[in-house]
């Protein structure tokens, strides 16, 4: 059952990255859209993510619950040493979620208040994935020190380093890319779709650049990223598969295949996560000095893991079909609100 639980943990993380990422990305796209086109972008985006954003957000909750029930020591260490970035991420999730809801449901659509919601929404859409990436980067950067010499060493440098920040920026770029690809299929007309295609290309180039920066930053911080990714056949295959699908995606975009490219984009991001995740497995957090926190040795007692596995199993039978139907139902153009 331990493997089932671990599989669900990774599934939740990957889905949060993909769905939540696309969701954050929509705000990032809005942030980097010219004033002229912003209203249209906002409309498309609202139609696309309005019905599903609450559900996208739930994968984070599922991941956290699996962590604290199934791997409590890892959760408590993460919460202790990454307290500050987690706090920032929470603040931004709060700001973003409420701003989105408020701007949709405020009965008086005043210009000033709508502007305020928009500002909060777009900036927090940028900062949330930045910090999510920082947290993910910190988990594998070996900068977490269980016996810190000072406050700064223990609670600041654990996450404020070149590598973590580079991963954060890379996450932002990937989110924007996922969102742009997703929104192509949701656009109202061809002109709108063309703008999202342009955005997707633009975000893709930025993601590649930031991806390169992650490798450079890894060099600064002595993170053996290149070794992890190119040093084993699984990760290498994943990277090659991602690259091939990227080429296919560009071919398909120009042929106007709006829906199928989503699968390719999702596949690429999943492959990136697999490439990095595979080499660490079963380590979840890499600690300074080498005592890594392993999912295999720091899990909860077997009875808990069994019960958790069953809960997830039964839960997924309820959640996945209804979630699928939700996405399916709102794929059609949103003619009535």
């Amino acid at each position, binding site marked *: 059952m331990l493997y089932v639980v671990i599989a669900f943990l990774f599934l939740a993380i990957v889905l949060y990255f993909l769905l939540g990422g696309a969701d954050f990305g929509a705000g990032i796209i809005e942030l980097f859209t010219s004033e002229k086109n912003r209203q249209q972008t906002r409309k498309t985006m609202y139609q696309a993510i309005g019905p599903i954003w609450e559900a996208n957000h739930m994968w984070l909750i599922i991941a956290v619950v699996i962590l604290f029930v199934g791997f409590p020591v890892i959760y408590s260490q993460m919460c202790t040493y990454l307290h500050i970035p987690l706090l920032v991420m929470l603040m931004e999730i709060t700001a973003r*979620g409420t701003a989105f809801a408020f701007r949709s449901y405020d009965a008086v659509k005043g210009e000033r208040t709508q502007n305020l919601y928009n500002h909060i929404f777009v900036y927090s859409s940028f900062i949330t994935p930045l910090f999510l990436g920082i947290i993910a980067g910190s988990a594998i950067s070996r900068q977490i020190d269980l016996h810190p010499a000072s406050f700064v060493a223990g609670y600041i440098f654990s996450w404020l380093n070149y590598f973590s920040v580079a991963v954060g920026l890379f996450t932002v770029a990937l989110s924007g890319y996922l969102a742009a690809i997703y929104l192509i299929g949701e656009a109202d007309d061809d002109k709108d779709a063309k703008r999202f295609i342009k955005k997707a290309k633009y975000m893709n180039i930025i993601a590649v650049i930031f991806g390169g920066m992650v490798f450079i930053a890894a060099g600064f911080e002595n993170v053996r990223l290149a070794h992890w990714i190119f040093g084993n056949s699984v990760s290498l295959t994943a990277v090659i598969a991602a690259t091939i699908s990227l080429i296919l995606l560009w071919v398909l975009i120009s042929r106007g295949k709006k829906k199928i490219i989503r699968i390719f984009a999702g596949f690429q991001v999943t492959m990136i996560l697999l490439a990095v995740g595979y080499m660490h497995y079963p380590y979840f957090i890499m600690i300074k000095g080498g005592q890594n926190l392993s999912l295999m040795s720091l899990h909860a007692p077997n009875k808990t893991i069994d019960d958790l596995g069953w809960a997830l199993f039964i839960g997924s039978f309820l959640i996945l079909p209804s979630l699928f139907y939700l996405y399916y139902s709102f794929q059609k153009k949103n003619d009535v609100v």
Partner: protein
Amino acid sequence: MNDFLAARSQMAISLGFHIIYSCVGMVMPLFMAVSHYKWIKTGDPVYKNITQAWSKGVAIFFATGAVSGTILSFELGLLWPKFMEHAGPIFGMPFSLEGVAFFIEAIALGFFLYGWNRFNKWFHLFTGLIVGISGIISGILVVSANSWMNNPTGFDFVNGQYLNIDPIKAMFNGSWFTEALHMSLAAFSATGFAVAGIHALMIAMKKNILFHTKAFKIAIIFGAVAAILQPFSGDLSAKNAYKTQPAKLGAMEAYYHTVPYSPLVIGGIPDTAAKKVNYGIEIPGLLSFLVHDNFKEPVNGLDKIPVQNQPPVTITHLAFELMIAIGSAMMLLGLIYFTALWKKRSWLSKKWFLNLFIWATPFGFIAVEAGWTVTEVGRQPWIIQGIMRTSQAVTPMPGIHYSFYLFTAVYFTLSIAVIVLLSRQIKMVPELYDR
């Protein structure tokens, strides 16, 4: 402010706000579903308008409830990592199920809010109903996790080790039912009275009387039924508290000295140094009767509990008295409402009658906060009753007071925003729904 106090205050602030958002978030969808059902059945467009107006409120509260709940799931680890390290595998079961229930609620809400004119009307009603049902299930599950902290079972505590862990047994600990019942009824009565109060105010101001009268009726029926049932659930809770947390009951009643014909103290201000209650009304034998069902058998008081294991008596007692006073008032109002409904229909439109409910708008939530204070402060100094002290659980990270200020600011801002948004919803009723 030291880190420990800051961490406790931050947790108190977070839960104090979350409990309001989540009560409304779990109960309002049912109001909405009832009004939706009435619309489908009667075809009266007023019910459709009410459903749509309420659904906006539900969406606002769901969003704030969801984010403040996310904050809490992290705060457990951010503030109390040592607690989560040991308790996570034991009491985590309800949280994982709650994750599922909450997920379903979010999906159903997506269907409901954006599904107008898009789905079969019965499917649409069904999704609204699912929002309500899964909301209530989530509430019960979260309370079950809390009741484990009050009545920890499902493991053996041997030499500081947590052995033979059984999460299912922990979930169905001896206190889950009484606590979940009490909290669910509280959510229904608090939300019912709050919603009804707002609509009563609108009726009194002669605005969209038809709309607000129908809305008032749905909300107050839920609220009044729950308020009338609540004292019975309260009695079960108190008996259970005595069985599992005698120190909590002692503090609730400010009952210092064990005597036969144990008296119930109503009101009063505890004098902690002198171990007595000033200005209270003592009714001999009533506490014995409430706990043991006879007037003579002594109830064990705080004198049977070592001082270092006693909760703060003054806060617990005053919060408890406040809850009882408000709860009784709400029960009375509930009875008045049903009297009016069945015997004195003329009361329903009388100014004094509406005023009663306008004044009672915040009552339920004050009682919820007071009750929450009783259960949480009354458990101190323990985070897991009798097993782990709160002070042992706190994070080693210094500077928590900054985080406390930050969260306090966030919650206040959020609440002001919610209040402004709701008042705007109400203000816009004539424009949006009176066509």
